[in-house]
């Protein structure tokens, strides 16, 4: 534990220092340093300050959640360049159950807007999605400044949890309107941002595949989503292979239910039939970028030595490590819920999953008093903070 408290040493503070003391110590030390003259000393102080604030917040969260093992871990994980939440209201863990103060947008307004959008998407053609989103954005801009951001998070939840149709189109329309190609935006979105980053990276890989393959698979997705016919059984090995490579991206096209039903139907076949289907599946090169697959094909035809050589080439291509530290791990967790329940125990990961399922129902908020809705949202928010928000993963298949 003491090993992680270097930051308090730098600030000259004892291990029981609170947020006020940390700020004061930082302010005092800052007056003795001219950042322009001593940039290194300033940076050291700044790192210590940010780490101390993160540590302080983590301790406070742990105190609320009654999980004594957490503070040390969080203090290590929230490294120096993670920005720190200003969290005075929550750090003390008391009197935080007060409902929204103006000017917060009523939470159920943006949720209902998101649900209305989901319902509209189901009822209308996919090409209407961009203009529908524009309409909603215009409506949100008659509200407080927080409204578009709140809506954006609900929308990511809807897409990530597969509660909306035409997810690929919704994702594409939202991507440009909510600036999902911005690295800073994604990191500020926390785990939702990580999920988007995953989808974008997998889409990149998907787009590198041969166009005719992509076209045929896309048609297959549409067909399967419309009706899971027995004629599609033979194609399951391909889908399983795609699902290994592009699970998040595939989730925009095929729902978990379809995938599960497909797999179950395939597994129910006699093993001889399954083998035949497996052999029908396209070769491994189909799942590689078109240019690599083409090169490999050509070389294979020339000579066995070349086959061996290209194998090594492929090894290099596949194995060489390109980027080590370029991609950061510690995405800061976003905090947007206005209400934090006081005294209620934190949900377990399993409870979180159930909670999300509950919240994702279209009628989740119908007939419920506002306080109850707020409490549900607060619980969901704590799930998210504890790292239990996750888009559907396909590991269970």
């Amino acid at each position: 534990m003491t090993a992680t408290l270097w930051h308090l040493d730098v600030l000259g503070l004892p291990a029981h220092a609170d947020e006020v003391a940390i700020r004061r110590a930082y302010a005092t030390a800052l007056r003795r340093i001219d950042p322009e003259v001593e940039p290194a000393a300033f940076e050291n102080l700044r790192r210590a300050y940010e780490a101390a604030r993160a540590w302080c917040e983590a301790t406070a969260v742990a105190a609320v959640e009654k999980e004594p093992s957490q503070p040390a871990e969080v203090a290590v994980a929230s490294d120096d360049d993670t920005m720190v939440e200003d969290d005075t209201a929550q750090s003390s863990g008391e009197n935080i159950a007060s409902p929204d103060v103006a000017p917060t947008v009523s939470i159920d307004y943006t949720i209902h807007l998101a649900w209305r959008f989901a319902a509209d998407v189901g009822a209308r053609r996919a090409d209407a999605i961009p203009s529908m989103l524009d309409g909603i954005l215009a409506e949100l801009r008659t509200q407080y400044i927080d409204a578009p951001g709140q809506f954006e998070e609900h929308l990511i939840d809807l897409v990530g949890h597969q509660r909306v149709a035409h997810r690929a189109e919704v994702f594409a329309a939202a991507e440009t309107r909510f600036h999902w190609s911005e690295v800073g935006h994604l990191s500020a979105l926390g785990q939702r941002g990580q999920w988007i980053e995953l989808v974008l990276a997998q889409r990149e890989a998907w787009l590198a595949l041969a166009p005719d393959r992509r076209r045929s698979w896309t048609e297959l997705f549409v067909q399967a989503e419309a009706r899971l016919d027995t004629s599609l059984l033979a194609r399951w090995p391909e889908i399983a292979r795609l699902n290994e490579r592009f699970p998040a991206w595939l989730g925009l096209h095929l729902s978990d239910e379809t995938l599960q039903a497909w797999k179950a139907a395939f597994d129910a076949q006699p093993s001889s039939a399954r083998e035949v289907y497996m052999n029908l599946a396209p070769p491994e090169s189909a799942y590689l970028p078109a240019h690599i697959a083409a090169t490999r094909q050509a070389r294979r035809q020339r000579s066995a030595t070349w086959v061996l050589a290209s194998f090594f080439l492929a090894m290099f291509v596949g194995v060489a490590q390109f980027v080590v530290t370029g991609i950061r791990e510690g995405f800061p967790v976003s905090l947007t819920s206005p209400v934090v329940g006081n005294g209620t125990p934190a949900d377990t990961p399993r409870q979180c999953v159930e909670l999300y399922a509950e919240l994702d129902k279209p009628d989740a908020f119908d007939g419920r008093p506002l306080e109850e809705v707020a409490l549900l949202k607060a619980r969901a928010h704590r799930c998210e903070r504890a790292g239990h928000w996750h888009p559907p993963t396909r590991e269970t298949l």
Partner: protein
Amino acid sequence: MIVGIDLGTTNSLVAAWVDGAPRLIPNALGGMLTPSCVGIDEDGSVLVGEAARERLQTHPLRTASLFKRYMGSARSVRLGDREYRPEELSALVLRSLKADAEAYLGRPVTEAIITVPAYFSDAQRKATRVAGELAGLKVERLLNEPTAAALAYGLHEANSETQFLVFDLGGGTFDVSILEMFEGVMEVRASAGDNMLGGEDFATLIADLAFANGIPDDARGDAHFMQRLVARAEMAKRELSNSGAASFDIGYKETTARVAIDNDTFEKLAQPLLNRLWRPIERALRDARIRAADLDNVVLAGGATRMPMIRALATRMFGRFPAVGHNPDEVVALGAAVQAGLKMKDKALDEMVMTDVCPYTLGTEVVRHLDNGSQAAGFYAPVIQRNTVVPVSRVERFLPVTAQQKQIRIGVYQGESRMVRDNVPLGEITIPILPGPGHADGVDVRFTYDVNGLLEVEVTVVATGDVKRIVIESGEAHMPPDEIARRLEVLSALKIHPRDTLEYRTLLARAERLYEQLLGDVRDQLGQFILRFEQVLATQDLRLIARDAASFREALQTIERDYRFAPEPTT
């Protein structure tokens, strides 16, 4: 003595820290706002400020304005017989402000703190620094405009622990900063902005109405007409803020168009511009991890925040009325003076410390693994994340793509996109490495960003310890030192209109502008006035000139007042 300068798109101001308080310095005409306009007189002497602004309409080809918008680009403006870079035009404005400060303070001024929009890029900041040098000023610090506004605001903020947002909509740029104040520390948490959104764009909307109301599109090529139109639109914009409705007539050749507008129509028209205000604010709030409800106050800066629709929007966005008390035109310059006081370690500011952030993400280009086992180039790997407190120095390690690689190219970029092709390239370093699997340690790349927004990149080969370093000198508009020296010489040789008669020169420019706008008898009468005043000026008898100027000014005012209701002449 260090002065603080707000070098604006439309107007510029200079202020100084005097006797423990920031104080604005008046120009030769007695006003605080000096229009950021530069003109070349017929006799080749330079006119800056109000006189140049009046001449925009009468001599559009010899006068320049809005050049801040082109800072950091290679674009230049032709005035008379010479091309001027935006840095040079800015330098002429700075020189005029410097002269005003020296006249007011009674001593030479050689150092300045110049404010820049927080969202100004690397190239734009460098250009501003060069402008300072060309004006004979050592630029002690480039200060972000919203941060300056916050300093002026925070100086009198009794509440020592507070979080607030600065909403800075100037003539040409929009900035948002979120600040936190505690224990005398003024900390910028996040900044965001739009460098191409300002009050001028709102005036352009009104000007465009003339074309919708019958003025043919080919009039856009007529510089005289366009300046006249823009001036009328700007006047209408101000009138809208005051009285809620405005109208004017404007003629081009045989056609005359009447433009009438009220606040409601204006707001509808401006909706696309208003929509662009949301994004930077949302981003700054999210980056600062603050909700609107957590803000204690919203501070407005920049003249364009006088528009009622902007105030209404800010009130709606934040669910509260923005702070009043500071003149939005002056608050940035006052803050620059506070920073000058801080820099001079003034006792009155002993307790105050300020930290700012780097508003852009800075990073390098990498090749990335894709999920299907292939590699793809062109990805962006951030090294310094946006809104990191500066000064800052960060290291990341990068490996070669293949074991046979003989060198590594480190591309340096600024921007937010995942792909470098959508970001701004700042420079690159290529460094040799030892090939072979045993030497695959790669390179350490260190980005160092200082308080003025200058970036230095250092690459170290891990295996050998070889180091290569560059200070980013990027952009099409980069000026090497010898070029700066040459331009400094040229600028120094320019004849500047003497300060003591600038007032009369301005009066004359105003009269000439009026003359162009009038018709008939009044025009002839004004022509007589002008002729007489020119003759008085030629006597060089200051006492006589001063006496005549007073009655001349009065006559102009009368005509101007009446003229407001007079129809626009057709030419």
